[in-house]
């Protein structure tokens, strides 16, 4: 925001379609006042999302580790952008259309190439609520073969539930945009001069997880199959997730962009998540065998992991509840 406003004052080119900013360019003093007002209202009014280049032609926005709220525009998940010779791919679109628009503006600050693919790593709101900002002719939405079903059974519920924490202004413009290109196995996307491999996984974090691998830079976008700092969230199958970690680790990546947390070396980035899931699994499995009721078992689950993760109290009992109901059927 600051940089853009100063450019306005200096008479630099304006972002297209930004009427408010065009008006202010006539009166530099007004621009300064608006700048101050906008700074006061924090980043909610920011025009572009912060993205940084982590490898040649590969960008990421690192979401803040928090719950989605009106204060953060739902901008809590990591987002990826890969720019090829002819086309751009976006990996997840954020937790609101506002965040999606800011992402689009950030991309346009780097390239005019068409956004050919929007890949949703899965169907959770913090990864798909920005989709509507990218609906355009020639843009394919790419997702797991099970993603349409996941969005069907959960989309309306998510819109209703997040209205409470996000507010009407952000939620009113969210549209559930289902994928137009489904992935079952591996799908190769050609961006010109570089290819992305989109891989559909069995139910693990959720029932519709895909990863995106940029072969040119060996960068893996793991979606929520990999968490760092942010406690892993279980909305699929804990047994299958643990089993899948070895296959995931075998991917020939040099770095990973997790669904939440910083870009990290591969496969050592998996260590914390594996430890958490194994601790949770062994504790809950024992409670099931011992006949401890679900309401009791979930209260002290994975206690040794407390302090090692952010948002532990927001998700640990919920993970334990899901795990318990799965181990009961072993």
């Amino acid at each position: 925001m600051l940089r853009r406003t100063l450019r306005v004052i200096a008479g630099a080119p304006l972002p297209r379609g930004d009427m408010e900013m065009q008006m202010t360019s006539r009166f530099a003093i007004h621009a300064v006042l608006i700048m101050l007002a906008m700074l006061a209202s924090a980043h909610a009014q920011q025009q572009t999302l912060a993205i940084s280049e982590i490898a040649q032609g590969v960008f990421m926005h690192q979401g803040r580790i928090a719950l989605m709220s009106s204060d953060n525009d739902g901008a809590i998940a990591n987002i990826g952008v890969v720019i090829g010779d002819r086309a751009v791919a976006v990996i997840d679109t954020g937790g609101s259309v506002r965040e999606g628009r800011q992402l689009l503006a950030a991309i346009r600050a780097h390239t005019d190439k068409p956004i050919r693919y929007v890949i949703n790593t899965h169907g959770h709101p913090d990864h798909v609520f920005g989709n509507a900002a990218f609906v355009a002719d020639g843009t394919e939405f790419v997702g797991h073969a099970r993603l349409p079903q996941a969005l069907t059974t959960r989309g309306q519920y998510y819109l209703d539930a997040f209205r409470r924490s996000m507010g009407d202004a952000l939620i009113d413009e969210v549209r559930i945009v289902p994928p137009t290109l489904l992935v079952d196995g591996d799908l190769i996307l050609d961006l010109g001069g570089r290819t992305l491999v989109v891989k559909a996984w069995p139910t693990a974090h959720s029932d519709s997880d895909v990863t995106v691998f940029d072969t040119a830079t060996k960068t893996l976008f793991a979606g929520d199959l990999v968490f760092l700092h942010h406690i892993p969230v279980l909305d699929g199958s804990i047994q299958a997730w643990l089993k899948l970690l070895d296959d995931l680790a075998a991917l020939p990546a040099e770095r990973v962009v997790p669904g939440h947390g910083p870009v990290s070396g591969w496969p050592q980035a998996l260590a914390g998540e594996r430890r958490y899931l194994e601790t949770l699994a062994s504790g809950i499995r024992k409670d099931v065998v011992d006949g401890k009721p679900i309401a009791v078992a979930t209260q002290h689950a994975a206690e040794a992991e407390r302090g090692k993760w952010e948002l532990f109290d927001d998700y640990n009992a919920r993970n334990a509840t899901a795990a318990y109901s799965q181990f009961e059927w072993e």
Partner: protein
Amino acid sequence: MPEFAIRSVCAAILLSAVLSPHSVSAAAPEPYDPWPGLVQDIFDSRPMDDGSNLIALEMPTRAEDAAIVPVTLRLKPTSDARSRVVTITLVIDQNPAPMAAKFKLGTDANVSEISTRVRINNYTNVHAVAETSDGRLHMVQTYVKASGGCSAPAAKNAEEAKGRLGQMRYREFAGSQNEEKSGTREAQVMIGHPNNSGLQMDQVTQLYIPALYVDRLQLWQDDSPVLSVEGGISISEDPNIRFTYVSNGAKTFRAEAKDTDGHQFRHEWKVNGSGM
């Protein structure tokens, strides 16, 4: 209460949810209290006493996982023969189908505790209404906050759930020596079933995915009823019921269930003979 009446209440609520988008939207603070209307529809506007000396309703203050929220109903010991609890109705006020379950307690089973798991769609009051043998109603309530994050009252692994359809499991839990001596038993019955709510619209066909859920479960020790449950779509996937009762020395435990597609599930197990 006749089964039909409960069904028609559920159907009416489902229908109103479909017809009026506002009734399913979770708009910020809920000014509208559905409870008076539910008392009319489900309980025929009968008067209710405070039930806290008779029954306890235990739930977490927040639904951690919207699809699996544990509920425990605990009956308090009483010496008054007229106040024997005959049925307990569980109502989740803000759910699309508030009437979650009606438990009918076997006359000779001395059921003292029932636990199951429910879906919670929104911030809601939850009511448990016990009917005693003298025909009076006794009500207790609690409040549950909806879960946050990406948790949803939907299947996590629909294929696996489908693969389990119809499987039934029975388990007895070890009790204290006193419990064993008095014949008190704690057991659990699980039924593999998606218990699909039918409230989701298929984006392509714009039709609602049909509901498919277990609407009746009956449990016996030999041929003596222990517990029967009339369930709705608020009961979690893979319906699970854990309960405490007094053994009559039976050698077998039997469960029969049926779902809304008319599937019948039946299983019989040998009871662990220890202490008998």
